[in-house]
């Protein structure tokens, strides 16, 4: 037998999944469980579940700088510094050194990355909400961007499916704006949150405060414990990696499930430079990778390819996949590849002091808060901007930190700081960003990264709709907190941040009905390359105002189901 054919056989799988984050992990799980032999490629290093979480069980005094950021790290992690928390010593090793991985800002972009097995599923915010029916129709009704090629009913069963496996805790509230799902028991509100909820709901009939819906196991089922996952221990150190597997991540959930099939091969350190295209067959044949350590270039082949490298990562791979059929990047017949960058805008809200309930406290550290679903431009309300926003927030009693900003020192000062401080309550908005074709990324014609791949150039900014919305986001927050009887209410609207600060990058390879105006179809296939699927944030046609990861999970499970059915019909 010919050795080259043997070698090619070793490099051939039924499916290749590019990326191992939230959506890549789901693709690998679904495809392997449906019988496919899958290769999952991850550009970064491996991080093993539990044993790889090097700071997970550290006490505060175990950190050399007690969590503070060294001047050297501050310089190197320049994009992460903009978030105010991702560069902290506790979990900085889960984020990327921006100086080593530069990008170009024609207009500023806050791009926060996680290049390792599990991607940002290790550090995500875990808030898990469904898009509602209107979210899938608003573009069409308002003439914004293009229409989603799917509706809520198309995704609803897949939401139910992924919620069950991931383990989402939450309450069913019966609100059309925030569709209920398949939930584990909700976490508890504390005393002040309950009080503020009652007061706000009394003062504003159509505004609701519910418990945050989050991907934490509050009451694990067999589907979770069989994978070695345990209930949330309320440590609130999630971004370090959870040794209990209590929150959904690739490592805790989809990876062990995929590995259990015996059909998954995981290859870390493998940077996909392009998707290979066969001009004669009119389909993708595989991918080319660069080993991030050895720089060795290899090719892998498969019948179908799932591109799940995160919105900007996936799009940069497609842009770099040039052929005579696709001189401007794979699937870019519409010139929409790289356009319509979306995120959620935040850094706006209010906080205040709560008088009373000084005899009440709480036990445990709940990595979750309360949620106020969208109420603007909803149910008869009409504003001078489109879409809306939700708030995340919560109440707590201040700790020793309150001593820093006030006068005093000595014995009495110290003793006072050892007691629970006054209650405060705060909410911060998460607003929908509209798709705008002028908000775009391109590949630099001359600037390369360490592996010789083109750097990404960002040219995007918030629009007038977002700026108008932010006024409501601050004023409404102040109004609600004052109506709830909070004192010294302080509104804020920090406009110094940029797209990306929500770490919810979306768009750049949107789904749509028409190949002339979109990159992907209703099944997340590239219109013109049917065996390539993109099911991460790049696929999003609009952003909604809710956290997006649950929707990526549902889109991925749905597309994987479709892909395997098509394979069986020999359509791919």
């Amino acid at each position, binding site marked *: 037998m010919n050795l080259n054919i043997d070698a090619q056989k070793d490099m051939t799988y039924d499916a290749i999944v590019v990326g191992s984050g939230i959506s890549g992990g789901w693709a690998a799980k679904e495809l392997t469980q449906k019988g496919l032999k899958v290769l999952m490629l991850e550009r970064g290093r491996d991080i093993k579940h539990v044993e790889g979480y090097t700071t997970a069980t550290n006490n*505060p005094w175990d950190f050399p700088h007690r969590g503070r950021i060294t001047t050297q790290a501050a310089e190197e992690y320049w994009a992460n510094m903009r978030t105010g928390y991702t560069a902290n010593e506790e979990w900085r090793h889960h984020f990327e050194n921006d100086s080593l991985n530069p990008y170009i800002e024609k207009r500023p972009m806050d791009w926060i990355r996680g290049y390792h097995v599990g991607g940002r599923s290790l550090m995500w915010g875990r808030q898990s909400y469904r898009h509602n029916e209107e979210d899938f129709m608003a573009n069409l009704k308002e003439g914004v961007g293009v229409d989603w090629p799917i509706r809520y009913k198309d995704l609803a069963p897949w939401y139910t499916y992924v919620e069950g496996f991931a383990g989402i805790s939450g309450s069913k509230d019966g609100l059309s704006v925030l569709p209920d799902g398949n939930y584990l028991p909700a976490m508890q509100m504390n005393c002040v949150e309950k009080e503020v909820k009652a007061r706000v709901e009394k003062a504003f009939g159509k505004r609701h405060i519910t418990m945050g819906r989050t991907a934490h196991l509050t009451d694990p089922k067999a589907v979770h414990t069989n994978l070695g996952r345990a209930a949330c221990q309320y440590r609130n150190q*999630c971004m370090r990696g959870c040794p209990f597997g209590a929150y959904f991540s690739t490592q805790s959930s989809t990876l062990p499930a995929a590995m259990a099939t015996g059909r998954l091969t995981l290859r870390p350190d493998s940077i996909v430079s392009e998707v290979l295209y066969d001009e004669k067959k009119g389909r993708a044949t595989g991918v080319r990778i660069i080993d991030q350590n050895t720089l060795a270039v290899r090719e892998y082949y498969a019948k179908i390819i799932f591109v799940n490298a995160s919105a900007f990562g996936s799009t940069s791979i497609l842009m770099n996949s040039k052929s005579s059929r696709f001189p401007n990047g794979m699937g870019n017949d519409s010139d929409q590849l790289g356009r319509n960058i979306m995120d959620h805008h935040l850094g706006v809200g209010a906080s205040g002091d709560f008088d009373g309930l000084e005899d009440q406290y709480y036990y445990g550290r*709940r990595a979750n808060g309360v949620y106020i679903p969208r109420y603007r431009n909803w149910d008869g309300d009409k504003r001078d901007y489109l879409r809306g926003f939700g708030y995340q927030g919560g109440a707590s009693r201040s700790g020793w930190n309150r001593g820093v900003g006030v*006068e005093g020192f000595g014995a009495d000062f110290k003793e006072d700081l050892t*007691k*629970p401080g006054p209650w405060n309550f705060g909410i911060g908005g998460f607003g929908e960003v509209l798709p705008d074709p002028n908000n775009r990324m391109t590949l630099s014609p001359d600037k390369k990264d360490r592996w010789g791949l083109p750097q990404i150039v960002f040219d995007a900014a918030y629009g007038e709709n977002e700026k108008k919305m932010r006024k409501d986001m601050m004023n409404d927050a102040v109004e609600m907190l004052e109506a709830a009887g909070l004192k010294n209410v302080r509104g804020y609207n920090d406009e110094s941040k940029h797209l990306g600060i929500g770490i919810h990058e979306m768009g750049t390879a949107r789904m749509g009905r028409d190949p002339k105006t979109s990159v992907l179809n209703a099944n997340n296939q590239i219109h013109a390359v049917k065996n390539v699927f993109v099911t991460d944030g790049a696929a999003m046609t609009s952003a909604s105002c809710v956290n997006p990861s649950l929707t990526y999970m549902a889109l991925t499970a749905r597309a994987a189901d479709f892909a395997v059915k098509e394979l069986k019909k020999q359509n791919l």
Partner: protein
Amino acid sequence: MNRRDALLRVATMVGATMTLPALGSSALAETLEASAAQRLATGKPVLFTADQDALVADLADVIIPTTSTPGAKAAKVNEIIDVVLKDCYKPADQKVFIDGLTMTQKMSQDSYGKAFSQLDNNQKIELVKKLEADAKQQKSAAARAVAGQQDVQIAAEKRNVTPFFAMLKDLTLMGYFTSEIGATQALEYVAIPGRYDGCVPLKPGQKAWAI
């Protein structure tokens, strides 16, 4: 701290006076994470002289003295201040701090004719009150200068300088309450709570959670 908490915390800090130094360029060549290990291995300060180190320990113990629980000196707060100041602060801020230590010793000599460590408790407290008053005066002068008042002459680059005492107090509180003694004795530390109870009546003498 989860992302929501972090975002809220950052948001509420907007516009407030930051006690952290402004971030800028640094040309430190060595691996910064090594400072703590170096201090531990050699027993010697990494930034301070031995005298400065001892003075920081004394000053921190005035801010957080031994009460029903051990104070800052017992928690070796000077050691973490030494490491954090070296690795996390710009040279200009380090200079403000070191100059503040020199000034403190001079004030001690001028007022009492002896070193800070030789003062009795009341004298130490009086001197630290002066440091606190100086810092307050410095901040309000800077604020007035920023507001454009003509009678205040402060160079623009000095208006954002965190006064010595503000740095010292911030570092002392951080160093103490995140230390093992501070977190587990002055405060209550539970590594793995195991559950969340939203409403718990406060017990007599209940301490604040360390984290």
